[in-house]
């Protein structure tokens, strides 16, 4: 592994961390798409910067880009506060407008210059190690490593300083206001960090990867935990893992690095989505099936309690009467028997003492609808879950 490869992985990992931190809060605040909006809305900033400086390589362009990013956020917030449209609609209204202002400015004044977001922001991870920072003639490393490093340092300091405020204002705006933190200041602070990170990371790794690194790791972490600190840690781990592993996938396939990292992020999310212990799709399906069986069991017990007649309690009749498929009826019968709720004698089903008490309690609960009634029932009811 040569130094360029190490540097690329280092840059990608730092970008992953720098994106995961604001990304976690964006996902929690349901504003994930703001990073995509910012990456488009910075165009007019770049164009105006070019008109002022006449130089595509001037840092003023990047500063103005970050500033336009913040303007985007302010406008989105303003439109959303009117209460007339929702957050995502406000985002969708603002960034195409800003982007098209940029396009029109180019078309009117600079049609012959290769001027677009790509021309100013490098956005190619493969080339990042070749853009060196020279201080007094000494090579101190790739420029984007320093840019991203500084952004990350500021982000982490702000995170540590304002963790409590961020936490409270993310989950309960009212409480945070009554505690004396202005939710607006925290909001704009977070959004400014997101904007600067987006522009800085855009230069290092490109637009799509920035959006992916902000959202995918945070979304994956969201499915695994409800603890903010753990969510931040998980999001960072997922981001860094995808960055490094994605790089090696690109190495094996000789493919685009950003593309491979983005694919890895997608795979990580898919795996979490499928296998997360409580929110994952498989866990949810399993739970739903259990609940369905429980409800069936209860229906069955109620039926038995209501009918003393033998013909209503005959095994074969149950299949027809309750209209269950045989297999399901069989599994419900087995379950009830296993829990000592019923007895089957000569194909006639009857409730045991335990089953009787249980069913009475259930009826009580259905009539009174008081939670206290069902509390102790849970022990009986969920026996079979263990």
């Amino acid at each position, binding site marked *: *592994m*040569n130094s360029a490869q190490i540097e690329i992985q280092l840059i990608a990992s730092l970008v992953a961390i720098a994106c995961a931190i604001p990304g976690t809060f964006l996902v929690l605040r349901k504003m994930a798409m703001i990073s995509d909006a910012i990456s488009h809305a910075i165009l007019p900033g770049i164009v105006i910067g070019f008109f002022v400086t006449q130089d595509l*390589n001037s840092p003023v362009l990047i500063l103005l880009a970050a500033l336009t990013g913040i303007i985007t956020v302010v406008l989105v917030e303003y439109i959303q506060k009117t209460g007339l449209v929702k957050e995502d609609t406000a985002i969708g209204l603002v960034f195409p407008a800003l982007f098209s202002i940029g396009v029109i400015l180019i078309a009117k004044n600079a049609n*012959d210059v290769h001027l677009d977001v790509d021309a100013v922001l*490098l956005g190619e991870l493969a080339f990042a190690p070749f853009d060196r920072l020279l201080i007094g003639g000494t090579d101190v490393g790739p420029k984007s490593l320093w840019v991203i490093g500084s952004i990350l340092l500021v982000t982490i300091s702000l995170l540590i300083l304002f963790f409590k405020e961020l936490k409270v204002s993310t989950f309960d705006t009212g409480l945070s206001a009554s505690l004396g933190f202005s939710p607006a200041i925290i909001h704009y602070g977070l959004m400014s960090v997101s904007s600067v990170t987006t522009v800085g990371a855009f230069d290092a790794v490109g637009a799509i990867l920035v959006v992916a690194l902000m959202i995918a790791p945070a979304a994956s972490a969201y499915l695994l935990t409800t603890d903010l600190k753990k969510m931040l840690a998980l999001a960072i781990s997922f981001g*860094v*893992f995808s960055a490094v592993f994605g790089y*090696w996938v690109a190495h094996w396939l000789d493919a*685009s690095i950003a593309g491979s990292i983005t694919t890895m992020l997608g795979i990580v999310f898919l795996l979490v989505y499928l296998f997360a212990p409580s929110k994952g799709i498989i866990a949810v399906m399993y739970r739903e099936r259990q609940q369905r069986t429980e409800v069936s069991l209860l229906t069955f017990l109620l039926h038995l309690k209501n009918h003393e007649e033998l013909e209503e309690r005959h095994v074969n009749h149950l299949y027809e009467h309750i209209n269950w498929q045989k297999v399901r009826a069989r599994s419900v019968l087995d379950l009830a028997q296993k829990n000592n709720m019923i007895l089957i004698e000569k194909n006639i089903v009857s409730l045991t003492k335990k089953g009787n008490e249980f069913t009475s309690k259930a009826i009580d609960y259905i009539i009174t609808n008081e939670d206290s009634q069902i509390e102790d029932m849970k022990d009986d009811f969920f026996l079979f879950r263990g």
Partner: protein
Amino acid sequence: MKKIISLLAIILIFTACKDNNAKDNGKLNIVTTTTMLTDLVQNIGGDMVNAQGLMGSGVDPHLYKASEGDVSKLVNADIIFYSGLHLEGKLVEVLEKMESSNKTTIALADALDKKTLIGSEYFASNYDPHVWFDINYFEQFAEKTAAVLAEKDPTNAAKYEANKNAYIIKLEALQNTIKQTIETLPKEKRVLVTAHDAFNYFGKAYGFEVVGLQGISTATEAGVQDVQKLATFIIDKQIKAIFIESSVPKRTIEALQASVNSKGHDVKIGGTLYSDALGTTGTVEGTYIGMFEYNVNTIVNALK
């Protein structure tokens, strides 16, 4: 945080173990951007250099995306040759920056006399980058390449010089052949309609009027008006054929053909021309000379 940093460190250490086996064996490692330049360096450097191209055949240099393997190629390169004049888009910027971190990067188009180049109407310092379609310019590329190689590898300087001279004789021969071929086409029929403005130098050098559907950059799309205007032009001039380019999607040219045909004039698609990249390596069109002959024959046969 600590966990992540240690995880990173472990991964880096783990991966550091499988080091790249830099295949040095004393030869110069040379990286080129477009296929034309790869062919040129292979002709002049011969067995004395390792020449590797970044862009494959059929890749549009304006829209080239780097892959992971390109990083190692660039890192291990002793000399990087590129065309310049913004042909390689952002890569040019990167290569210019590499110059400052003591790697030799050579923009071959810098060797040309800027006054003879076709410039942009509005911005004085922007030129049409498709210079290799004038063989005289490509000969200057060859001179420059040989000079750079000789400077970097003085022991083989004489061989580079000999290879270059042999190659230039071939290029001269090529120039004569294609001029003869073009002579067989009546002057008023020498109109070349293609997808983008890659053939301006070709037109200027060999007496063709060249009309491109899109501008110089392939990143912009042709508008409806461009298609209509060009369709009228084709009918007025009674042009028999228009051409597809290997590195540009043929959709727009097909739209143009449909538009012309709907106005009652029959225009053929004359064939696929190689513009920004050569054909597949190993075929005749995979070399600069083969590509040029193929293009000229295709154009002349279709327009006759």
